[in-house]
Structures are given as structure tokens and as C-alpha cells.
């Protein structure tokens, strides 16, 4: 495992992966955009406003997934004491924050024509806002705390923030919310029609590939920054 996380190994993988991911990203993005903006059917109640779902839902999934990964890596960081886990978390955080902001903003744009309001202090929306604050705390801890303590404190923030993930996921079931319950389910049958599921998955794949691309570029940057600091010690 230690050998796999060797910086030299990772750097050469990053270099090759960036090219492959870029090609796949363009392909899925074009397909996903055409499907979601022009070819997918309109909803019988919401009309064309349902198209916001194709950017809102994948963004929310990625925001949650990113924080889940950061939290998991933070736990590993405490167990194995490998700084690389912290470095990966630091690299993922801005991507997660950006998708959280996209999720909140597009949710607000969807809320106005659907509920008649831009914002409501509803359990799902509020817990997403809390996630946004956790991302900010995590990023600021890396930015404003000295390097040695930052690794520890940011990991603690991420582990503490993990509590918020099930709250976001189950908020629509636990409380009476304006936000609808989820239509896409992993453990039971989804209630979304396949003509809407295809563009949704295509957009999720495209945005996931975008996240991977940014992660690889940021991770490469971090490795170079570390190595440049190391040059002074030679």
C-alpha cells in the first residue's frame, strides 16, 4: 500500500490519466448536455423546469461523495499516519465546495418555479448549507493553520463533518420537507423513467470525470510544490 502511494508512481499515473479523462469528459459532456437540454422529455407537472435536475442532482451527489471520501481519508490518515491521505483530501475539497455551491444555487433556481420561493429553511437545504460550511472550515484549516497542525485539525473537521452526510441523505424521510424524496435509489427500485435516467447518469458521469480531471491537476500541483520545497534541502 505504501508503495502504491509513492509520489513518483502517482505522478506518472496522473500525467497519463489526465489525457484519457479529458477525452472521456468531452464525449460524455456533449452527450449529456444534448440529452438534458433538448432530447429528454418534459415533466407533466414541472414542465421544462425539470431540466435543472440534470445539473442539480449530479452536483449534489458529487458534493456528498467528495466529503465522504475526504472523511474516509481523514480516518485513514489517523490510522496509517500517511500525509498523502491529507494531501488527497486537501485536493478534493475545492471541487466538493464548488459542487455544493452549484447544488444550492441551482436548487434555488428550481425552487422558485416549483415552490414559489428561492429559499426555504427546510431540512435538506439547510443541511446542504451546513455541508458548505464544513467544506469552508476544512479548506480554511489548510490555509490558515501551520502545515503540521493543519493535517490533524482538518482531518478532525472532516471526521466530525461526516455526521452531516446521513442527515442530508435522510432529511427528506425524517422530516416533513418541501424538498421531494429521492427518485433514484440504489437499494430499491428507482421511480424515475429511463428517458430521464439516461441524461441524468450521463451528466453525473461527465461531472464526475470533470472532478477527476481537476483532482489530477491539483494533485500534480501539490506534488510539484512539495518537491520544490524539498529542493532546498539537497
Amino acid at each position: 500500500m505504501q508503495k502504491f502511494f509513492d509520489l513518483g508512481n502517482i505522478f506518472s499515473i496522473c500525467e497519463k490519466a489526465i489525457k484519457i479523462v479529458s477525452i472521456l469528459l468531452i464525449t460524455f459532456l456533449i452527450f449529456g448536455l444534448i440529452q438534458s437540454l433538448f432530447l429528454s422529455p418534459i415533466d407533466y407537472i414541472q414542465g421544462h423546469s425539470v431540466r435543472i435536475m440534470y445539473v442539480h442532482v449530479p452536483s449534489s451527489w458529487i458534493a456528498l461523495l467528495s466529503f465522504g471520501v475526504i472523511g474516509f481519508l481523514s480516518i485513514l490518515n489517523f490510522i496509517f499516519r500517511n500525509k498523502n491521505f491529507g494531501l488527497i483530501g486537501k485536493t478534493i475539497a475545492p471541487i466538493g465546495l464548488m459542487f455544493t455551491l452549484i447544488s444550492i444555487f441551482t436548487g434555488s433556481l428550481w425552487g422558485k418555479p416549483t415552490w414559489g420561493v428561492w429559499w426555504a429553511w427546510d431540512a435538506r437545504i439547510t443541511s446542504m448549507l451546513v455541508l458548505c460550511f464544513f467544506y469552508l472550515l476544512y479548506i480554511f484549516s489548510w490555509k490558515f493553520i501551520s502545515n503540521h497542525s493543519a493535517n490533524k485539525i482538518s482531518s478532525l473537521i472532516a471526521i466530525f463533518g461526516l455526521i452531516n452526510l446521513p442527515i442530508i441523505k435522510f432529511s427528506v424521510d425524517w422530516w416533513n420537507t418541501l424538498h421531494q424524496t429521492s427518485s433514484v435509489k440504489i437499494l430499491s427500485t428507482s421511480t424515475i423513467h429511463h428517458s430521464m435516467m439516461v441524461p441524468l447518469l450521463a451528466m453525473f458521469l461527465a461531472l464526475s470525470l470533470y472532478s477527476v480531471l481537476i483532482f489530477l491537476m491539483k494533485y500534480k500541483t501539490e506534488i510539484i510544490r512539495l518537491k520544490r520545497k524539498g529542493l532546498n534541502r539537497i
Partner: protein
Amino acid sequence: MNINAIYMGGYGIYVWSAFIFAFVCCLYLYLKTKKELHRQEQAFLSHVKDLPKAKVKIVQTQRVNKEILVTSSKYSN
């Protein structure tokens, strides 16, 4: 182009705003990341150039340093 594809039965302003906002955010993060990567590569390259020859040889023995030098000089040409 069909005007209905843009108007979307009155919901166009919400739908297009959502997609454009997401696109602008993604583009901003991509350009910012790319710029920072390029800046770090150039800084690494110029740092190595300033080192004495004996130290450069030591730097080149490490696999990751070699990879950084190759990619940095590729983009600076």
C-alpha cells in the same frame, strides 16, 4: 434555432441560468487550477536551473523529479 428550445415554456430563464452558472463555475475552477499547475511547474524548473550542476544530478536521480522536469520543459517550449 427553434425559439422554444430557448424559451422552454417560460422556464428558460431558470434552466439556462442553472446550466450557465454551473458551466462558469467549472470553467473558473479549471482555468485557476491550470494556471496554478503551470506556475508551479515553471517555479520548479527555474529553481532547478539555479542549482549547481552537482545538485542537479542528485535531483535527477529521483523518479518524481525527473517526471516533473520532463513535463515542465515540455510545456515551457
